[in-house]
Protein backbone atom coordinates (compact mmCIF):
# COMPACT_ATOMS: atom_id res chain seq x y z
CA UNK A 1 0.00 0.00 0.00
CA UNK A 2 2.77 2.41 0.90
CA UNK A 3 4.45 1.64 -2.40
CA UNK A 4 1.21 2.35 -4.26
CA UNK A 5 0.83 5.66 -2.45
CA UNK A 6 4.40 6.50 -3.39
CA UNK A 7 3.71 5.81 -7.05
CA UNK A 8 0.54 7.93 -6.93
CA UNK A 9 2.45 10.77 -5.24
CA UNK A 10 5.17 10.67 -7.87
CA UNK A 11 2.66 10.60 -10.72
CA UNK A 12 0.73 13.44 -9.11
CA UNK A 13 3.91 15.51 -9.00
CA UNK A 14 4.51 15.15 -12.70
CA UNK A 15 2.96 17.86 -14.80
CA UNK A 16 1.40 17.52 -18.20
CA UNK A 17 3.45 19.01 -21.00
CA UNK A 18 2.70 22.69 -21.44
CA UNK A 19 0.48 22.78 -24.56
CA UNK A 20 1.28 26.40 -25.33
CA UNK A 21 4.95 25.58 -25.61
CA UNK A 22 4.34 22.47 -27.69
CA UNK A 23 2.10 24.45 -30.04
CA UNK A 24 4.50 27.32 -30.63
CA UNK A 25 8.03 26.00 -30.23
CA UNK A 26 9.95 23.29 -31.99
CA UNK A 27 9.98 20.04 -30.05
CA UNK A 28 13.56 20.27 -28.77
CA UNK A 29 13.11 23.84 -27.53
CA UNK A 30 9.72 23.03 -26.04
CA UNK A 31 11.05 20.04 -24.10
CA UNK A 32 14.03 22.00 -22.82
CA UNK A 33 11.87 24.89 -21.68
CA UNK A 34 9.47 22.43 -20.04
CA UNK A 35 12.38 21.01 -18.05
CA UNK A 36 13.27 24.51 -16.88
CA UNK A 37 9.63 25.15 -15.97
CA UNK A 38 9.52 21.90 -13.98
CA UNK A 39 12.68 22.94 -12.18
CA UNK A 40 11.02 26.21 -11.21
CA UNK A 41 7.90 24.41 -10.05
CA UNK A 42 9.92 22.14 -7.80
CA UNK A 43 11.60 25.17 -6.25
CA UNK A 44 8.27 26.87 -5.62
CA UNK A 45 8.96 29.57 -8.18
CA UNK A 46 6.30 31.04 -10.48
CA UNK A 47 6.26 29.22 -13.81
CA UNK A 48 4.08 31.48 -15.90
CA UNK A 49 6.78 34.17 -16.42
CA UNK A 50 9.07 31.47 -17.81
CA UNK A 51 6.43 30.25 -20.24
CA UNK A 52 5.70 33.80 -21.31
CA UNK A 53 9.40 34.48 -21.82
CA UNK A 54 9.62 31.54 -24.18
CA UNK A 55 6.49 32.63 -26.06
CA UNK A 56 7.88 36.15 -26.30
CA UNK A 57 11.02 34.78 -27.89
CA UNK A 58 8.97 32.83 -30.37
CA UNK A 59 6.86 35.89 -31.22
CA UNK A 60 10.03 37.87 -31.85
CA UNK A 61 11.48 35.20 -34.07
CA UNK A 62 14.36 34.21 -31.79
CA UNK A 63 16.06 30.89 -32.46
CA UNK A 64 15.51 28.01 -30.04
CA UNK A 65 18.88 28.19 -28.26
CA UNK A 66 18.40 31.88 -27.55
CA UNK A 67 14.91 31.22 -26.18
CA UNK A 68 16.27 28.51 -23.90
CA UNK A 69 19.06 30.79 -22.72
CA UNK A 70 16.63 33.62 -21.99
CA UNK A 71 14.32 31.35 -20.01
CA UNK A 72 17.30 30.00 -18.08
CA UNK A 73 18.49 33.51 -17.24
CA UNK A 74 15.00 34.39 -16.02
CA UNK A 75 14.88 31.25 -13.89
CA UNK A 76 18.18 32.27 -12.32
CA UNK A 77 16.81 35.76 -11.68
CA UNK A 78 13.66 34.40 -10.05
CA UNK A 79 15.70 32.01 -7.93
CA UNK A 80 18.05 34.75 -6.74
CA UNK A 81 15.09 37.03 -6.06
CA UNK A 82 13.49 34.29 -3.99
CA UNK A 83 16.69 33.93 -1.98
CA UNK A 84 16.78 37.67 -1.37
CA UNK A 85 13.07 38.22 -0.71
CA UNK A 86 12.24 35.01 1.13
CA UNK A 87 10.35 31.84 0.23
CA UNK A 88 6.97 33.51 0.70
CA UNK A 89 7.62 36.28 -1.82
CA UNK A 90 4.86 37.00 -4.33
CA UNK A 91 5.36 36.12 -7.97
CA UNK A 92 5.19 39.78 -8.98
CA UNK A 93 7.92 40.68 -6.53
CA UNK A 94 10.11 37.89 -7.85
CA UNK A 95 9.61 39.01 -11.43
CA UNK A 96 10.41 42.59 -10.45
CA UNK A 97 13.44 41.28 -8.58
CA UNK A 98 14.70 39.65 -11.75
CA UNK A 99 14.39 43.05 -13.46
CA UNK A 100 16.36 44.58 -10.60
CA UNK A 101 19.23 42.16 -11.24
CA UNK A 102 19.20 42.72 -14.99
CA UNK A 103 19.43 46.46 -14.29
CA UNK A 104 22.55 46.07 -12.17
CA UNK A 105 21.19 45.67 -8.63
CA UNK A 106 22.49 42.96 -6.33
CA UNK A 107 20.72 40.29 -4.25
CA UNK A 108 22.10 41.87 -1.08
CA UNK A 109 20.51 45.21 -2.00
CA UNK A 110 17.22 43.53 -2.84
CA UNK A 111 17.25 41.79 0.52
CA UNK A 112 17.70 45.15 2.23
CA UNK A 113 14.60 46.44 0.46
CA UNK A 114 12.62 43.47 1.75
CA UNK A 115 13.78 44.23 5.30
CA UNK A 116 12.74 47.86 4.90
CA UNK A 117 9.28 46.83 3.69
CA UNK A 118 8.48 43.38 5.02
CA UNK A 119 4.71 43.60 4.65
CA UNK A 120 4.09 45.19 1.27
CA UNK A 121 4.38 44.30 -2.36
CA UNK A 122 7.64 45.58 -3.79
CA UNK A 123 6.86 45.00 -7.44
CA UNK A 124 5.98 48.55 -8.48
CA UNK A 125 8.75 50.22 -6.50
CA UNK A 126 11.36 47.78 -7.74
CA UNK A 127 10.17 48.02 -11.34
CA UNK A 128 10.32 51.82 -11.19
CA UNK A 129 13.77 51.66 -9.64
CA UNK A 130 15.04 49.07 -12.11
CA UNK A 131 14.07 51.34 -14.95
CA UNK A 132 15.97 54.22 -13.33
CA UNK A 133 18.98 51.97 -12.72
CA UNK A 134 19.20 51.20 -16.41
CA UNK A 135 19.28 54.94 -17.04
CA UNK A 136 22.18 55.54 -14.70
CA UNK A 137 20.91 55.70 -11.12
CA UNK A 138 23.64 54.04 -9.02
CA UNK A 139 22.28 50.85 -7.38
CA UNK A 140 23.69 51.59 -3.95
CA UNK A 141 22.21 55.08 -3.82
CA UNK A 142 18.97 53.69 -5.16
CA UNK A 143 18.86 51.08 -2.41
CA UNK A 144 19.47 53.56 0.37
CA UNK A 145 16.87 56.03 -0.91
CA UNK A 146 14.37 53.22 -1.48
CA UNK A 147 14.85 52.07 2.10
CA UNK A 148 13.97 55.57 3.24
CA UNK A 149 10.94 55.74 0.99
CA UNK A 150 9.69 52.37 2.21
CA UNK A 151 10.14 53.37 5.84
CA UNK A 152 8.15 56.51 5.07
CA UNK A 153 5.42 54.21 3.68
CA UNK A 154 5.42 55.83 0.27
CA UNK A 155 2.65 54.29 -1.85
CA UNK A 156 2.93 52.54 -5.20
CA UNK A 157 1.20 55.44 -6.90
CA UNK A 158 3.76 57.80 -5.38
CA UNK A 159 6.55 55.68 -6.86
CA UNK A 160 4.90 55.97 -10.27
CA UNK A 161 4.53 59.72 -9.73
CA UNK A 162 8.23 59.87 -8.85
CA UNK A 163 9.04 58.32 -12.20
CA UNK A 164 6.81 60.82 -13.99
CA UNK A 165 8.45 63.68 -12.15
CA UNK A 166 11.91 62.44 -13.07
CA UNK A 167 10.95 62.10 -16.71
CA UNK A 168 9.49 65.59 -16.76
CA UNK A 169 12.64 67.01 -15.20
CA UNK A 170 14.90 65.17 -17.64
CA UNK A 171 12.83 66.41 -20.55
CA UNK A 172 13.31 69.88 -19.10
CA UNK A 173 17.07 69.48 -19.25
CA UNK A 174 17.94 68.05 -15.82
CA UNK A 175 20.33 65.17 -15.35
CA UNK A 176 18.82 61.91 -14.17
CA UNK A 177 20.42 61.47 -10.77
CA UNK A 178 19.75 65.02 -9.49
CA UNK A 179 16.21 64.68 -10.80
CA UNK A 180 15.69 61.46 -8.85
CA UNK A 181 17.10 63.02 -5.69
CA UNK A 182 14.79 66.01 -6.06
CA UNK A 183 11.76 63.73 -6.43
CA UNK A 184 12.76 61.68 -3.41
CA UNK A 185 13.18 64.86 -1.40
CA UNK A 186 9.70 65.89 -2.46
CA UNK A 187 8.26 62.63 -1.15
CA UNK A 188 10.35 62.50 2.02
CA UNK A 189 11.38 66.06 2.85
CA UNK A 190 14.96 66.35 3.97
CA UNK A 191 15.74 62.81 2.91
CA UNK A 192 16.63 63.25 -0.70
CA UNK A 193 20.28 64.02 -0.15
CA UNK A 194 22.87 61.55 -1.20
CA UNK A 195 23.26 59.10 1.69
Amino acid at each position, binding site marked *: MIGLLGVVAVLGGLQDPEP*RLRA*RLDSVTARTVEAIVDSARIRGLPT*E*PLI*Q*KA*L*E*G*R*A*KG*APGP*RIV*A*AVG*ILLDGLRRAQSALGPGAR*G*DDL*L*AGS*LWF*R*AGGSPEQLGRLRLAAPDRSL*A*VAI*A*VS*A*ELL*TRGWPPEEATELLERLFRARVS*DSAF*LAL*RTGVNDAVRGGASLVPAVRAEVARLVPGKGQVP
Partner: protein
Amino acid sequence: MRDDWLDSVVRELKRPTPVRPDFDRRLGAALARTPRPRGGWLLGVGAMAAGALLTTFLWKGRSRGPAPVEFLIDAPAARAVTLVGDFNDWDRRRTPLERVIGTSRWRARVPLHGGLYRYVFLVDGERWVADSTQLTAPDPDFGTTVSLVTVR
Protein backbone atom coordinates in the same frame (compact mmCIF):
# COMPACT_ATOMS: atom_id res chain seq x y z
CA MET B 1 -18.08 -20.49 -2.48
CA ARG B 2 -20.65 -19.67 0.14
CA ASP B 3 -19.90 -17.84 3.33
CA ASP B 4 -22.29 -19.02 6.02
CA TRP B 5 -21.41 -16.25 8.39
CA LEU B 6 -22.09 -13.56 5.75
CA ASP B 7 -25.39 -15.21 4.82
CA SER B 8 -26.49 -15.14 8.43
CA VAL B 9 -25.67 -11.46 8.72
CA VAL B 10 -27.66 -10.69 5.57
CA ARG B 11 -30.64 -12.67 6.85
CA GLU B 12 -30.54 -10.81 10.15
CA LEU B 13 -30.48 -7.45 8.40
CA LYS B 14 -33.44 -8.39 6.23
CA ARG B 15 -35.54 -9.60 9.20
CA PRO B 16 -38.44 -7.21 9.87
CA THR B 17 -38.25 -5.45 13.24
CA PRO B 18 -41.57 -5.23 15.07
CA VAL B 19 -42.53 -1.70 16.14
CA ARG B 20 -45.24 -1.18 18.73
CA PRO B 21 -48.26 0.76 17.39
CA ASP B 22 -47.88 3.59 19.94
CA PHE B 23 -44.17 4.12 19.09
CA ASP B 24 -44.65 7.52 17.38
CA ARG B 25 -46.79 8.88 20.23
CA ARG B 26 -44.32 7.78 22.91
CA LEU B 27 -41.34 9.21 20.96
CA GLY B 28 -43.08 12.59 20.59
CA ALA B 29 -43.87 12.72 24.29
CA ALA B 30 -40.28 11.88 25.23
CA LEU B 31 -38.94 14.64 22.98
CA ALA B 32 -41.39 17.13 24.49
CA ARG B 33 -40.07 16.37 27.97
CA THR B 34 -36.41 16.83 26.93
CA PRO B 35 -35.16 20.27 28.08
CA ARG B 36 -33.96 22.48 25.21
CA PRO B 37 -30.56 24.15 25.53
CA ARG B 38 -30.82 27.66 26.88
CA GLY B 39 -29.76 30.44 24.54
CA GLY B 40 -30.73 28.47 21.50
CA TRP B 41 -32.10 31.59 19.88
CA LEU B 42 -28.69 33.19 20.29
CA LEU B 43 -27.05 30.29 18.51
CA GLY B 44 -29.59 30.62 15.71
CA VAL B 45 -28.95 34.31 15.28
CA GLY B 46 -25.20 33.68 15.35
CA ALA B 47 -25.48 31.00 12.71
CA MET B 48 -27.55 33.32 10.51
CA ALA B 49 -25.01 36.12 10.91
CA ALA B 50 -22.14 33.78 10.09
CA GLY B 51 -24.03 32.59 7.04
CA ALA B 52 -24.61 36.16 5.89
CA LEU B 53 -20.94 37.02 6.35
CA LEU B 54 -19.84 33.92 4.48
CA THR B 55 -22.23 34.68 1.66
CA THR B 56 -20.92 38.24 1.45
CA PHE B 57 -17.32 37.01 1.46
CA LEU B 58 -17.96 34.46 -1.25
CA TRP B 59 -19.90 36.95 -3.34
CA LYS B 60 -17.09 39.48 -3.13
CA GLY B 61 -14.55 36.82 -4.04
CA ARG B 62 -16.60 35.80 -7.01
CA SER B 63 -17.16 39.36 -8.18
CA ARG B 64 -13.43 40.23 -8.01
CA GLY B 65 -12.84 39.52 -11.66
CA PRO B 66 -10.35 40.99 -14.05
CA ALA B 67 -10.18 44.76 -14.36
CA PRO B 68 -10.32 46.38 -17.81
CA VAL B 69 -7.01 48.02 -18.67
CA GLU B 70 -6.77 50.42 -21.58
CA PHE B 71 -3.73 50.46 -23.85
CA LEU B 72 -3.13 53.44 -26.09
CA ILE B 73 -0.54 54.30 -28.67
CA ASP B 74 -0.19 57.23 -31.00
CA ALA B 75 0.72 55.83 -34.41
CA PRO B 76 -0.48 58.12 -37.18
CA ALA B 77 1.10 56.25 -40.07
CA ALA B 78 0.24 52.76 -38.89
CA ARG B 79 -2.02 50.50 -40.91
CA ALA B 80 -2.48 47.99 -38.08
CA VAL B 81 -1.42 47.76 -34.46
CA THR B 82 -1.61 44.74 -32.20
CA LEU B 83 -0.83 44.23 -28.56
CA VAL B 84 1.30 41.32 -27.44
CA GLY B 85 2.41 40.46 -23.95
CA ASP B 86 2.32 38.18 -20.96
CA PHE B 87 -1.48 38.40 -20.86
CA ASN B 88 -2.11 36.96 -24.31
CA ASP B 89 0.74 34.47 -24.67
CA TRP B 90 2.57 36.90 -26.93
CA ASP B 91 0.15 36.02 -29.69
CA ARG B 92 0.27 38.78 -32.28
CA ARG B 93 -3.18 37.89 -33.64
CA ARG B 94 -5.14 37.87 -30.41
CA THR B 95 -5.39 41.55 -29.41
CA PRO B 96 -5.66 43.98 -32.32
CA LEU B 97 -6.03 47.66 -31.44
CA GLU B 98 -8.79 49.78 -32.93
CA ARG B 99 -8.11 53.20 -34.32
CA VAL B 100 -9.86 55.92 -32.34
CA ILE B 101 -12.04 57.64 -34.91
CA GLY B 102 -10.78 61.03 -35.99
CA THR B 103 -7.42 60.68 -34.24
CA SER B 104 -4.04 59.07 -34.79
CA ARG B 105 -4.41 56.96 -31.68
CA TRP B 106 -5.03 53.26 -31.41
CA ARG B 107 -6.74 51.65 -28.45
CA ALA B 108 -7.47 48.27 -26.88
CA ARG B 109 -9.12 47.35 -23.62
CA VAL B 110 -7.95 44.13 -22.04
CA PRO B 111 -9.39 42.53 -18.89
CA LEU B 112 -6.49 41.71 -16.58
CA HIS B 113 -6.23 40.09 -13.19
CA GLY B 114 -3.88 41.58 -10.61
CA GLY B 115 -0.22 41.20 -11.46
CA LEU B 116 2.82 42.56 -13.25
CA TYR B 117 2.76 42.14 -17.03
CA ARG B 118 5.30 42.75 -19.78
CA TYR B 119 4.02 43.84 -23.18
CA VAL B 120 4.80 45.67 -26.38
CA PHE B 121 2.96 47.03 -29.40
CA LEU B 122 3.52 45.52 -32.82
CA VAL B 123 3.01 48.07 -35.56
CA ASP B 124 2.20 46.87 -39.07
CA GLY B 125 3.25 43.39 -38.12
CA GLU B 126 6.94 44.22 -38.11
CA ARG B 127 7.88 47.04 -35.75
CA TRP B 128 8.06 46.44 -31.99
CA VAL B 129 7.22 49.61 -30.08
CA ALA B 130 7.31 50.01 -26.30
CA ASP B 131 4.59 52.02 -24.59
CA SER B 132 6.23 55.35 -23.84
CA THR B 133 3.63 56.20 -21.22
CA GLN B 134 4.42 53.23 -19.00
CA LEU B 135 7.33 51.69 -17.19
CA THR B 136 9.84 50.06 -19.47
CA ALA B 137 12.55 47.48 -19.10
CA PRO B 138 15.32 46.67 -21.54
CA ASP B 139 15.16 43.19 -22.96
CA PRO B 140 18.69 42.11 -23.76
CA ASP B 141 17.47 38.60 -24.52
CA PHE B 142 15.49 39.45 -27.63
CA GLY B 143 16.74 42.95 -28.37
CA THR B 144 13.67 45.09 -27.77
CA THR B 145 12.48 47.20 -24.89
CA VAL B 146 9.27 46.00 -23.24
CA SER B 147 6.72 47.95 -21.24
CA LEU B 148 5.39 46.99 -17.84
CA VAL B 149 1.92 47.37 -16.45
CA THR B 150 0.85 46.55 -12.92
CA VAL B 151 -2.72 45.70 -12.06
CA ARG B 152 -3.94 45.55 -8.48
